[in-house]
C-alpha cells in the first residue's frame, strides 16, 4: 500500500568522484567527508527533509558499501517513514538480464517503478556532490506557477568560469531557450546546478523515448548516451517543451576536485561565506557517532577553526577543519588543513595546506604540505593529500599536489 506523494526526489549518488583520487578509493563521492561531521550526501538529504520531501530514491552504483551503511534506514535525516522515506536503489537483475546504470537518465529509467508506486506529480532530480542549502519546495512552487514541464535550478557564475558549466540561455521570463554544455564562448552566466524539477508524466515520456532512441543507436553502432543534461533536456528543448530556469541565490559549491573540496571546507571559516550550519531552522543532519565532547588542553592554541566531538587537542590548530575523534598532540601543528575522523597528528608533526584522510597516523617528524609562499613557481603549489588509513613516518614529507595512497 503506497500513498500518493506530490513530490518524489531521485538522488544520483553513483558518482565515482575520480578527481578526488585517494579519498574516493573505497567510497562513492557522495560519501566523502565534509565540514567536520558531514558527508556530502547529508546536504541533499537534509534539504529534502527541510523542504518537506519525504520520499527519496538514492541511485548508487560505485563502491556502495559505505554509502549504504551510512544511509541505513534514513533515520538521521528523519527519512525513516511508514510511507516513503529514503530507499537505496542499486542496479539490479531482471529476467532480461542485469545492467549497470548507463548514465543518469538510464538510472532513473530503470527505477520508474519505484517512482510510479507513489504516483507523484513532480519528480525532483538531485546530485550528491554539492554543498548548498536550498528549499526545493520553493522551486516546485516556481515550477507549478510557470506551468513548466521542467525547471532547472541555475546559479549566476563569474563569466570567466562559465565555460566549466552547463549554461542556460533564457528569455526575460526565465524560459530556457537554449542549453549548452561547457561552452567555449558562453552566451550567459546562468550555470545549471544539476537540480531539476520535472512534471512526472513529461519526464516519463522522455525517459522512455531516450532509452529507445539510445538503444536503437547502439544497435546501429552509432554514438549514444542516456544522460539528463545532454539528452533529456536537449530533447525537451527540441520539442518546445516549457523549460524554466530557477535562479538560486546563496552558497553553492561543487566539490569535484581536491582543491575545491579543500576550498569548500575553508569557506566554512570565512565570515563572508553565506553558509550557516548553526541555523536551527535548517539543520544539516548527519549520522552521528557517539563521542564525548572535545577536549582542548592547556597547551593548545586553537583559532579560526571548526572541530568536531571526540577530538583531543593539545597542539596548535589554525584555519582548519577537524573531524570527530582527531588527536593533535602537544607540539604538533595543523594549519589551513582538513583532518578526517580518527586521525592522530603526533607531537612535532606539521600539517599545512593539506587534506588528511580517516584513521591516519602522522608521526612526529613528518611534514605534510607547504604554504603557497614557500613555493617559487605558483603552478607547482597545490593541496597535499593523504588518503585513508595511512601512516606517514617520522622524517617523511608530502609535497604540495602530492597524493599519498600508501604508507610512507
Amino acid at each position: 500500500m503506497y500513498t500518493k506523494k506530490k513530490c518524489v526526489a531521485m538522488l544520483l549518488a553513483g558518482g565515482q568522484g575520480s578527481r578526488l583520487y585517494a579519498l574516493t578509493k573505497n567510497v562513492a563521492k557522495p560519501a566523502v567527508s565534509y565540514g567536520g561531521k558531514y558527508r556530502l550526501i547529508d546536504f541533499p538529504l537534509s534539504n529534502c527533509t527541510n523542504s518537506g520531501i519525504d520520499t527519496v530514491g538514492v541511485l548508487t552504483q560505485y563502491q556502495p558499501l559505505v554509502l549504504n551503511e551510512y544511509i541505513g534506514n534514513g533515520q538521521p535525516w528523519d527519512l525513516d517513514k511508514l510511507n516513503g522515506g529514503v530507499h537505496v536503489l542499486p542496479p539490479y537483475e531482471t529476467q532480461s538480464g542485469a545492467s549497470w546504470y548507463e548514465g543518469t537518465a538510464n538510472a532513473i529509467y530503470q527505477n520508474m517503478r519505484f517512482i510510479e508506486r507513489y504516483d507523484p506529480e513532480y519528480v525532483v532530480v538531485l546530485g550528491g556532490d554539492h554543498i548548498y542549502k536550498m528549499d526545493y519546495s520553493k522551486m516546485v512552487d516556481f515550477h507549478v506557477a510557470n506551468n513548466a514541464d521542467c525547471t532547472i535550478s541555475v546559479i549566476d557564475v563569474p563569466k570567466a568560469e562559465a565555460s566549466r558549466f552547463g549554461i542556460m540561455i533564457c528569455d526575460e521570463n526565465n524560459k530556457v531557450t537554449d542549453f549548452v554544455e561547457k561552452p567555449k564562448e558562453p552566451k550567459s552566466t546562468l550555470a545549471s546546478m544539476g537540480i531539476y524539477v520535472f512534471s512526472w508524466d513529461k519526464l516519463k515520456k522522455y525517459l522512455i523515448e531516450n532509452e529507445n532512441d539510445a538503444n536503437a543507436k547502439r544497435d546501429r553502432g552509432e554514438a549514444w548516451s542516456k544522460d539528463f543534461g545532454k539528452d533529456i533536456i536537449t530533447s525537451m528543448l527540441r520539442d518546445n517543451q516549457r523549460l524554466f530556469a530557477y535562479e538560486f541565490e546563496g552558497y553553492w559549491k561543487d566539490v569535484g576536485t581536491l582543491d575545491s573540496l579543500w576550498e569548500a571546507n575553508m569557506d566554512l571559516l570565512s565570515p563572508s561565506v553565506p553558509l550557516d550550519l548553526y541555523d536551527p531552522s535548517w539543520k544539516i543532519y548527519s549520522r552521528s557517532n557517539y563521542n564525548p565532547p572535545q577536549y582542548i588542553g592547556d597547551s593548545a592554541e586553537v583559532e579560526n577553526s571548526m572541530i568536531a566531538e571526540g577530538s583531543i587537542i593539545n597542539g596548535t590548530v589554525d584555519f582548519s577543519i577537524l573531524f570527530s575523534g582527531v588527536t593533535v598532540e602537544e607540539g604538533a601543528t595543523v594549519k589551513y588543513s582538513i583532518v578526517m575522523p580518527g586521525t592522530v597528528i603526533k607531537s612535532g608533526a606539521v600539517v599545512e595546506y593539506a587534506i588528511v584522510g580517516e584513521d591516519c597516523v602522522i608521526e612526529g617528524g613528518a611534514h605534510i604540505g607547504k604554504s603557497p609562499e614557500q613555493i617559487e613557481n605558483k603552478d607547482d603549489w597545490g593541496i597535499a593529500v593523504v588518503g585513508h588509513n595511512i601512516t606517514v613516518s617520522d622524517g617523511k614529507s608530502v609535497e604540495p599536489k602530492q597524493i599519498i595512497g600508501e604508507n610512507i
Partner: protein
Amino acid sequence: MSVNYNVLGLIFASMHDSYVSELTNQRTMGSIPFGGRYRLIDFPLSNFVNSGVSEVGVITKSNYGSLLDHLGSGRDWDLARKKGGLHLLPPYSQTGGIYKGRLDALSNIWSFVEHAFAKYVILANCDIVTSIDFTPVLKQHMSTGADITLVYSKAHYDSEKNSFATILEFDENNRLTGTMVNPKISGECNQWLDMLIISKDFLRSIVSEAESKNLYSFTKEILQNNVDKYKILGYEHKEFFMRIDNNENFYEANMLMLDAEKRNALFKKKTPVYTKVGDNAPVKYGLEANVKNSLIADGCIIEGTVENSVLFRGVKIGKGTVVKDAIIFQGSEIGANCKITGLIADKNVKIDDDKVVTGSAASPLYLKKGAKIS
C-alpha cells in the same frame, strides 16, 4: 554485545532529587545535564545497553517533562525495540499519590515487571556516574545463588562533602552484615552504588510482602532488618565512579571530566555513552578564540577565552569575554567583553555584553534556566 533477554533493567530516575534542589527545580535527577552533552540517565541506560540489556523500565516521580523529552522513544540508545525496549513508568501509587520508596514504587509498576520475559532484574539510580559491565555481576549472582547482589565500590567517603551514602559491611564470604545510611564518618568504606541484581521471583516475594505490611523502604526493610534472613552478597566495582548528590559535587564531577584519565574511565571506545542526538554543527573557534583545559560540546561558537570550563551544546561566547571555572548548559549565550568566573549557568541563560559575574570554584554561583543578565 549480543542481546540478553534474560535481564530487565530498572532505573529510578528521580531518586534523591531533593539533594540537588537547584538543578532539579525544573527537572528530575535523571535529566540533570552532565559532562557537556549528557544527562545523568545516559550513564545507567548506556551501561544496560552495553551489557546487552535491551529491556529497560524508567521509573519516574516528579518533574519528568524534561526526561520524557530527552528519552523520546529510546531510539538514541537503540532501545526503540519491538522485543524489549524502553518503557517509561509513571509514578502513581495504587494506593493513591506518588510512591514513597523503592518497594512502593516497584509494587506500583509490578505488572510491567511481571510481564517482562526476563528472569533477573537489575536496579540502578541516576546519581551514580560510572561505566560498568553488568555481565560479570550477573554471572556472580547466578553462580553464588545469592538472593540479592549489591554493587559497591571501595572509596573515600566524607559525610561533610556527600549528602548521601549507604555504607555496607561484608563478612569474609562477601556476605552483607551491616548497612549504614548517611553515617557521620570520613574514610575509605564500601559504598553501595545503588545498583543490585535480584531474580524476578525473589523480588516479587519481597515486594508483595512489603505491600501487605505497608512497608516501602528497600534499604531499611531488606538490607537492614532482614540481613540475616536473606543471602545478600556484594560485588565490588573497581572502576572510577562519581556520586552526584549536591550542587558542590555536581560541579566537581563535571570538572573531573577535564582529567583525561577520568574521562577515559567513563568514555571507553568499546562502550560508548549514548545520548540524545542534537544534530549540532562542529564547534567554531573564532579568530581571537583562546581555549585552555576545557570540554566543549558540538554547536558552540567561541570567540573569546575559555579556561577550566565545561560548555554544553550550542553555547555562544562573545569576543573579548573571559570564562573561567564555569559550567554552562545548552543554548546559553554570553555576550562580548564579559568576565565570568565560578558559574553554573543552567539552560538558555543570556548574559549581555560587558557583564561581570563572579563566583568561585569552591562555591560556584548558579543561574537558573532562562535567566537573563542585562
